[in-house]
């Protein structure tokens, strides 16, 4: 009886459902084309995925705290562009990296400050930042994309090992550190509480404004860090980098079981969500379906995931209500 109960409670965890969806999609595409899971394809897909994983984790944690960030795609371009341009100006590579990552942190801070200080929806504050940061990137490009300065230590971040790139290990490091932070530390408890019910959280003495600010800054930092990794991999700073990434990362988080209303989600779910999207893209291409179907597939996944999660949370609430009637 109690075993049965725990199996059921495991199955209703959103990230477990996402993982099952992930397995189903992997098997489906494997049946459609056996080469989908050979080393070559895994190397290709997992070579580009780490950047998306890192951004999705930042977005997921911010969404769990009850806020959004639409500017991640633009920060994803702005940070590496400034790093490259600073190196061209003669700034030492590591110092340029430090300053560049600070820009991600500052953008996150500004997003948080505007949202919290003026009490406006983060959706709007960060929509503004989406345009501002993209515009700054284009200005920083100074007309023509600059060449990639090879004195930058890019191998450290993207070196291609046998199967995986160094970037995957960086993404795993981010996932483990932030997973422990979110799920095991008291800060994580405050983040869930803030996103779950801000009034209740602050009545228990949690400084919900500070908690949200921390999540905004973390999200901006991770978006910039991930963008830097992509530029290091492509060895070309492009002003268009990260276009529409904001929506894709929200999609990854939501597919991974993060609630749009805050308070629910896991780092693991966001990671699986991001990987799932990249394999979906690859699977559609390899199954020789018109690549345009990728977006339709992604769209369907989002809707299925949210409908499913809403269904589970309604059921959970109903358990409580039925009990009250006993």
């Amino acid at each position: 009886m109690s075993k049965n109960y725990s199996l059921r409670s495991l199955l209703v965890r959103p990230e477990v459902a996402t993982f099952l969806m992930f397995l189903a999609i992997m098997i489906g595409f494997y049946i459609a084309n056996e080469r989908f899971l050979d080393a070559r394809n895994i190397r290709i897909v997992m070579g580009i995925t780490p950047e998306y994983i890192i951004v999705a984790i930042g977005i997921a944690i911010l969404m769990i705290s009850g806020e959004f960030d639409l500017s991640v795609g633009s920060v994803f371009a702005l940070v590496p562009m400034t790093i490259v341009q600073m190196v061209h100006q003669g700034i030492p590579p590591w110092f340029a990296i430090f300053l560049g990552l600070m820009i991600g942190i500052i953008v996150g801070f500004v997003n948080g400050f505007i949202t919290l200080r003026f009490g406006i929806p983060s959706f709007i504050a960060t929509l503004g930042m989406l345009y501002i940061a993209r515009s700054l990137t284009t200005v920083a490009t100074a007309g023509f994309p600059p060449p990639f300065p090879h004195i930058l230590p890019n191998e450290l971040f993207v070196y291609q090992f046998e199967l995986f790139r160094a970037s995957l290990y960086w993404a795993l490091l981010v996932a483990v550190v932030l997973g422990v932070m979110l799920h095991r530390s008291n800060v994580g408890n405050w983040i869930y509480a803030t996103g779950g019910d801000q009034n209740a959280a602050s009545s228990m003495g949690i400084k919900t404004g500070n908690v949200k600010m921390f999540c905004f800054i973390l999200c901006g930092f991770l978006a910039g860090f991930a963008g830097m990794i992509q530029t290091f991999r492509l060895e070309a700073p492009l002003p268009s980098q990260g276009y529409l990434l904001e929506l894709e990362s929200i999609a990854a988080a939501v597919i991974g079981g993060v609630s749009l209303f805050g308070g629910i989600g896991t780092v693991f779910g966001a990671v699986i969500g991001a990987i799932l999207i990249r394999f979906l893209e690859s699977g559609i291409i390899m199954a020789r379906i018109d690549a345009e179907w990728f977006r339709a597939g992604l769209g369907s996944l989002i809707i299925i995931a949210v409908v499913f999660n809403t269904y589970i949370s309604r059921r959970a609430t109903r358990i409580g209500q039925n009990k009250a009637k006993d």
Partner: protein
Amino acid sequence: MEDIIVCEGLNKYYSGVHALKDLSLKIKKDSVVGLIGDNGAGKSTLIKILSGAHQPDSGHIYFEGNKVKFKSTKEAMNLGIETIYQYSALIPEMSIARNIFIGREQTQYNVGNFGLMKTKTMQDDAMKALTDVELHLRSPDTPVNQLSGGERQGVVIARAMYFKSKVLILDEPTNHLSVKETNKVLRFVEGLKSQGVTSIFITHNLSHVYPIADHLCVMARGEKIADLDKKDTTIDHLTDLLVNG
């Protein structure tokens, strides 16, 4: 018996509304005080001030004989005044154990205020806290949204007990609860007295608080209109005060 809380001449204005008018009140240690009054009487305003959520525009509060000025709920909580608000102070999606320790997590490997939670200790202590208020639930990992309304109030009371509150303020804890669930909450509150906890039970439903109260305080239009020991009054007299102000 000594007074644990004394208020003198409290006033509170909300952009023009005079919500609390010169309110003075003494609360005896280890008693159950029923604070009653119709909707809009100013009950919530009074307890928000006592719990540090709001600050009075004028007047003084003494706690255990010392003058206090709470700037936040945290300050009041640190002195042992815990409040159970009209809305639930629980996070629905979070587990019972995590809810009990919100903002007061037991941690290890600390760096400043931050650290890793001692999950096992928190689960065990949560279970023990629930048992102490006679609430028997299956697991400390159950999300609060799977509990009934009465059980939720029980969790909040268990939380206040665990952190050794001296005063527990309950703002309409029986609102929206069935009769059976209401009785459960009343039993929790009645049990507090023997554990040395003073409780202030706020309601607009006299029949909920009358059976367990030692003292009753009636409010109307921001003023205290009666302040009586239960032995000096009757349910009919109080009903008359409530209806006719």
